[in-house]
């Protein structure tokens, strides 16, 4: 089935709700309106307002209620209208959900999904990449797909997972990507990265919308004789350390690319993993290309300067290739 990124998400919700009566949805404006980005369009018509619940504007209540419902055996999937608002329910996620299984053996099978990321001039409160708040919280899983097919397969897996999963959807991709998605394919296991493009000269490790930037840049550089391998992390927690080490060993040069801001971004973590596991395999410094340490600015020329660009990526790659 030919699906855009957002429709792949919608389709995954439909498939899971048809398959499992324990799955239900909660969020703001997800019912009759179908969600701010239409990820749940028409779902209230098929499944009814009991399973596609328009909630009050109250993120802590939404996530709290999801946690409570999950304790009774349900599998709630909640939408953050924008993932920036996940800050409002930080406590429910990091203190209630994340610690539940470790503390008292009570699993919390919930998914918190919604749009992240910049490039659409959303400004400081509709463009953020909040993944690292949660990557730093044991007990959570953090997933960010880069293609419609992965969005579909990973969301199936996230819903079936017994742990709280943050499912981050880059809104820049929602309608810009389209591909054939096998809707009868099995879920894609969480925690496994994917080589999105094989290459021998150096590795770009990235995730989310930056995968597309990396692939386009890799194509350009191939014409100039640099063969770039692109590793799409897909899941940030738990990280696929084996895949990270494998690509580093293969190419001996690593650049980490992310749209998230620099300090405390996943690049630092991956760098540490690489020097622990692949110190002897590296032929060059580990580089990182990220957004700068600032809020996401609103005005297009500011945002463009803020986000990692394809040009900057090409420059970094060429520099690394010379080692």
């Amino acid at each position, binding site marked *: 089935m030919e699906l855009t990124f957002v429709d792949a998400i919608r389709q995954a919700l439909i498939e899971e709700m048809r398959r499992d*009566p*324990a799955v*239900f949805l909660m969020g703001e404006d997800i019912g009759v309106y179908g969600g701010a980005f239409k990820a749940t369009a028409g779902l209230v018509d098929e499944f*009814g307002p*009991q*399973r596609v*619940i328009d*909630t*009050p504007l*109250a*993120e*802590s*209540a*939404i*996530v*709290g*209620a*999801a*946690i*409570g*419902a*999950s*304790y*009774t*055996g*349900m*599998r*709630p999937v909640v939408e953050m209208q924008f993932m920036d608002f996940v800050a409002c329910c930080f*406590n*429910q996620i990091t*203190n*209630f959900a994340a*610690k*539940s*299984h*470790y*503390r*008292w*053996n*009570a*699993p919390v*099978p919930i998914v918190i999904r919604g749009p992240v990321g910049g490039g659409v001039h959303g400004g400081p409160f509709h463009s953020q990449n909040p993944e690292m708040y949660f990557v730093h919280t*044991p*007990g959570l*899983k953090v997933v960010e797909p880069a293609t419609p097919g992965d969005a579909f397969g990973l969301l199936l897996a996230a819903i079936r997972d*017994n*742990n709280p999963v943050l499912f981050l959807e880059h809104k820049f991709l929602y309608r810009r990507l389209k591909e054939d998605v096998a809707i009868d394919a099995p879920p894609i296991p969480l925690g496994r990265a994917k080589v999105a493009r094989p290459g021998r000269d150096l590795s770009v490790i990235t995730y989310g919308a930056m995968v597309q930037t990396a692939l386009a840049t890799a194509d350009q550089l191939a014409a100039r004789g640099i063969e770039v391998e692109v590793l799409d992390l897909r899941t940030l927690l738990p990280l696929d350390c084996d895949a990270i080490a494998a690509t580093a060993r293969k190419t001996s040069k690593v650049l980490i690319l992310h749209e998230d801001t620099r300090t405390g971004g996943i690049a630092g973590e991956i760098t540490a993993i690489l020097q622990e596991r692949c110190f002897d395999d590296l032929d060059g410094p580990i580089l990182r290309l990220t957004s700068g340490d600032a809020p996401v600015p609103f005005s297009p020329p500011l945002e463009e300067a803020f986000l990692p660009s394809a040009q900057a990526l090409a420059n970094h790659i060429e520099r690394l290739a010379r080692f």
Partner: protein
Amino acid sequence: MPKARAARPRPAAAALARRNGQTAAAMVTDLRREKLRFDLRETRRDGKVVYEWEGRVTDPPPLRETAALSRDQALAIYRFMLMNRIMEQQLENLYKQGQVVGGVYFGLGQEGCSVASAFALGPDDWMAPMIRNQGSLLVRGFAPRDVMMQYMAKSGSPTRGRDGTSHFGDLEKRRMISPISMLGDLIPVMAGVCLGERMQGREVAAMTWIGDGGQSTGVFHEGVNFAAAQRLGLVLVIENNLWAYSTPLQRQVRITDLAVRAAGYGIPAFVVDGTDPLQVYEACRQAVARAHAGGGPTIIEAKLMRMKGHAIHDPASYVPPRLLEFWRRRDPIVRFEGYLTLKGWLGESERTRLRAEIEVEMAAERAAAESSPMPTPDDVLEGVYCERCHHPTPHFQGRPS
């Protein structure tokens, strides 16, 4: 001369109630026999800011009779209250002997509220205790040793030493959700429990407690409003014990009766004397029945007093002594004993026998707790995730809605 405007007919109370949920007046049922106010005066003495209370220290009225409790039930509540108190005395001893890791929290003076509220729940209902509701744990079938081992951080504790105090739960048997430290967050979670149950075809009550301090949180509002909007069977007991750690009620809010908040959510509320287990039970019984009927949430404000410090380390020197004296005369166990004696349900010898029986039981519980080893660290990093070790399973009754 301007024509006198004809008075517009006032909408009938029932219509108003329909439009507005219900009206504020109709919503709060006050079961108390004495309506108390505790206005503190902030003053300076010897250069220090202190609180004073100028009210009169009086004797309490008799308890408020309820037809809903049989003799056996009343005695069961009494026994749990006594267990609650004696268990906490043991906890204090354990602490003084250095056997407790961290602090101890007490529900002294609040036993009647913890016990009688939890007693109103049915076996299919859910509850989630706060730190002072150690009596509710006993009602729900946990043993004193469970509580003791939590405080002692033993491997045999319900959380195997991973958390302390009343931070434990049991999804399968006792339908109890573990609280977290952050006050207020349990409220939407318990609303969600009702939602999950409803989706499986059952209307249940989900009870939790919050303090006069915790009710100031934003998540309190979010949770109660969510429950109200969805008509979920949340039973929220606000234990207004006049203090949030060292901060008196009047520094938390501009109102005296927290129950009036219910009007803003379009839900009913009760005000009860929290040292009268009969009132607490009566209000909770009605709230639970309303939940079972799909009628939505209820707030029950229990007026009582935290009779010790915030935790064992806190001598509570900020509390005016006369205020404590006032409440000491309202010891829930003493009051309930008076009631049971008057009813002819509890004689002197029976009372002594019961107390001795519980003392023996508690000593055995304590010995069991002491004999549990400390946890070994081999699995300290395990169980962070549920990797198919549990199988969350819904139990749909009738057609999934």
